[in-house]
């Protein structure tokens, strides 16, 4: 049920909670939201519910001190959250995947940002305890973000009294984002995932070089539509509940450089590292070696945050090197040439870095790269025309998948989303996705067919 594309979520949990939330007197709504979130989390990962509640209590208590601007409280709070995250990252990676609590990467980061913001900000109005608690727990964000800032919650409509004439249009607006997200997730991401899985079935050591590149593209698109779709659904639910729309993706593949790509990709994570790590370390102000050090720290941490295995660290370091080369070398080239190269970075190098991100097994990763760059060995078994079948079977996913990389298409839909024809389009997108999700819920072979 913690999957937003799950029909039980869409047609049971979400409408029930939405109605309960709005029939609650507005002063108590955050209380309703917290209870709903606890139920949601319990349904997803009951074993670690106690850990989440423990973290919420500890952070709420420490917040008393950080609000009084006591630095020791802030340091303890940061250490506590970081220790929690690191411990379970390592346990989950090296002991058992079952030891990784649902959403811990996101809720600890929200807690850290809360403590730092509370310490720094000059607002002397103390946030209500229930507001803090509901911010930590809120179910649309607990599993995979976005990492909303507390400030955004304090300023939103959710905590004010609203008339039904304001509430219904907000739900409508949120539903539109949700519909778009659902379409990306079910109709694109899940299908790209099947595509990449089929390549895995062959065994990376036996794929042809064209297939290796198609696989890199397929996985990149899978990840993009999965996370963008998820983020749209999460933000849409937030809007339904009176929170602001949190933008987490802004057409990253239209970026003119890798640095820009990461200002448009998983934006709430990027701005977290920027605001709480990169800038406090001095950012790029002091120039030279210090900037280099700060960048390295940020990218190593970003890698580790995604997972405690070697490939994620390698992924972070590769991005560091690409961004460094953009900062140091490309600037010296003529403008047109440097633009060309940095665009090529986005469209060619980024997919290759996603391969590093995708394959956690070092040996398999090496196999995959030996097929991407087939200069070192020839596979024992390989079908040189293996890509023909994949292209034929997945062309209908690649075409819309590539088209939606063009910002104008999505932007136009959203710009005119209140026109009847776009509403109709979103309605169709939503229900086609529901139809496919429903078929797969009853028939596990719809997505995993052999």
């Amino acid at each position, binding site marked *: 049920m913690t999957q937003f594309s799950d029909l039980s979520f869409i047609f049971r949990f979400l409408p029930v909670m939405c109605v309960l939330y709005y029939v609650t007197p507005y002063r108590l709504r955050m209380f309703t939201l917290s209870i709903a979130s606890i139920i949601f989390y319990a349904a997803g990962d009951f074993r670690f519910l106690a850990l989440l509640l423990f973290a919420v209590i500890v952070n709420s208590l420490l917040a008393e001190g950080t609000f009084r601007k006591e630095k020791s409280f802030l340091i303890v709070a940061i250490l506590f959250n970081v220790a929690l995250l690191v411990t379970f990252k390592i346990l989950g990676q090296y002991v058992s995947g079952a030891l990784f609590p649902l959403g811990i990467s996101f809720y600890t980061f929200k807690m850290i940002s809360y403590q730092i913001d509370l310490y720094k900000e000059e607002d002397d109005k103390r946030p209500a305890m229930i507001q803090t608690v509901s911010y930590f727990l809120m179910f649309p964000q607990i599993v995979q973000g976005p990492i909303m800032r507390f400030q955004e919650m304090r300023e939103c409509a959710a905590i004010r009294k609203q008339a039904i004439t304001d509430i*219904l249009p907000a739900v409508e607006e949120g539903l539109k984002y949700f519909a778009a997200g659902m379409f990306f997730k079910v109709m694109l991401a899940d299908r790209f995932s099947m595509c990449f899985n089929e390549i895995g079935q062959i065994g990376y050591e036996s794929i042809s070089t064209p297939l290796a590149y198609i696989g890199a593209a397929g996985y990149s698109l899978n990840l993009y539509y999965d996370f963008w779709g998820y983020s749209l659904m999460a933000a849409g639910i937030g809007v339904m509940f009176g929170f602001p729309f949190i933008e987490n993706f802004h057409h990253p593949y239209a970026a003119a450089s890798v640095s820009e790509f990461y200002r448009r990709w998983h934006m709430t994570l990027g701005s977290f590292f920027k605001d709480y790590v990169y800038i406090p370390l001095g950012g790029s102000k002091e120039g030279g070696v210090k900037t280099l050090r700060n960048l390295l720290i940020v990218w190593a941490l970003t890698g580790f945050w995604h997972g405690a295995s070697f490939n994620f660290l390698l992924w972070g370091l590769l991005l560091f090197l690409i961004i460094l080369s953009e900062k140091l070398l490309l600037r010296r080239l003529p403008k047109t040439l440097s633009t060309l190269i940095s665009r090529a970075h986005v469209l060619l190098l980024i997919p290759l870095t996603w391969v590093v991100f995708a394959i956690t097994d070092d040996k398999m990763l090496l196999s995959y790269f030996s097929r991407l760059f087939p200069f070192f060995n020839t596979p024992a078994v390989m079908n040189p025309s293996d890509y023909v079948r994949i292209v034929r079977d997945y062309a209908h996913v690649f075409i819309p998948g590539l088209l939606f990389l063009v910002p104008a298409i999505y932007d136009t839909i959203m710009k005119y989303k209140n026109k009847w024809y776009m509403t109709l389009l979103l309605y169709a997108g939503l229900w086609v996705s529901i139809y496919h999700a429903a078929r797969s819920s009853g028939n596990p072979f719809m997505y995993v*067919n*052999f």
Partner: protein
Amino acid sequence: MKETVKKIPLLLATILTALATTFFGTVGRFGAYATYRYTFRDTPVMALFFMGLADKQMPFVSAAQALPRTSTVRDESAGEALPQETAQAAPANKITDLVPQVQPAPEAVTEETGELPASLPEDYTQPAHNLSYALDESTWDEATRNKYGRIALLADPETGIVPTQYFERLPSYSSGFETVDATYFRDALFIGDSRTVGLSMYVPDLNAQATFYAKTSMSVAHVMEQPFAETPLGVMTVPQALQGTQFQKIYVALGINELGSGSTEHFVERYQEVIEELKVLQPDAIIYICAMMHVSQKKDDEGGYVNNAVINDRNNALSQLADNEKTFYIDMNEATDDASGVLQSDLTFDGVHLKAVSYDLWYRYLLDHAIVKDY
């Protein structure tokens, strides 16, 4: 308020659609969709309607009228008559006149029910794939055996009568599996799902010889209906394709995609129908009923529909379909299982398919388990 209603078309349309599909799902739950695998606790009832929609099954019919999938697809108008029908018309000899001391063949499958006769002789043992028959051949002389080797099985269990024409038409087979070379597959057809697609793609020696009608997600339920057979004349259904070409060997490797639907009995019934139809379309061919390959322990542990218990149950039932005359059961798991009877983990990525490099094991198994006709 009226103004507000105008502002929320998507919400209203979605609520109405949800209510309507829930209504259809609920109606169907007690009728057309009664047999669907569905748990109310896990999924809203509207999902039933969508599953039905995918099967082109409307909710407003009773359960009895629904489920066209179980119906036979045998084409009664096909040019070639069924052997059993021929048996009625053709001049017949009494088998006992020809072969001394032959018992009526107990494993002859009764036509109507597809089940074994109710009473079996005490000393009867179910034939395995080693071609051991219940018939007492030890009393036959060499000449009889050579001449009439396997005919007795086709005798009518009641009368012991065998249609004459079978005496001429049926070749006898060598008494067990033999090892052959790649040319054996020159006149062979493989019908299967993604696993067979893999076999065709990653065993070039086999692909160069054999014909493959295989498609990802293919199932026994749909194999005779869906157009997926790639022929020089284009893509067509298997029956269409088989009208133009005669094969000597047909390998059927299906079943993994329908582990989650229907019962073993229903699956085997449908499988039998497919085999019978293939026999009519390809009277000269022998048919290999291929056991489903096991899944890995990891896949098994996921606890889904795809697990080795179901696979073993269904394989076991499939092995009973073989008459060791025209149809033979082969179990390639011998080549790919580990000691505990599951697919070896290093041969697979997803626990269900062989990796490209592993298909050779399957191919070697096929080379070592061939039935050779002695004309």
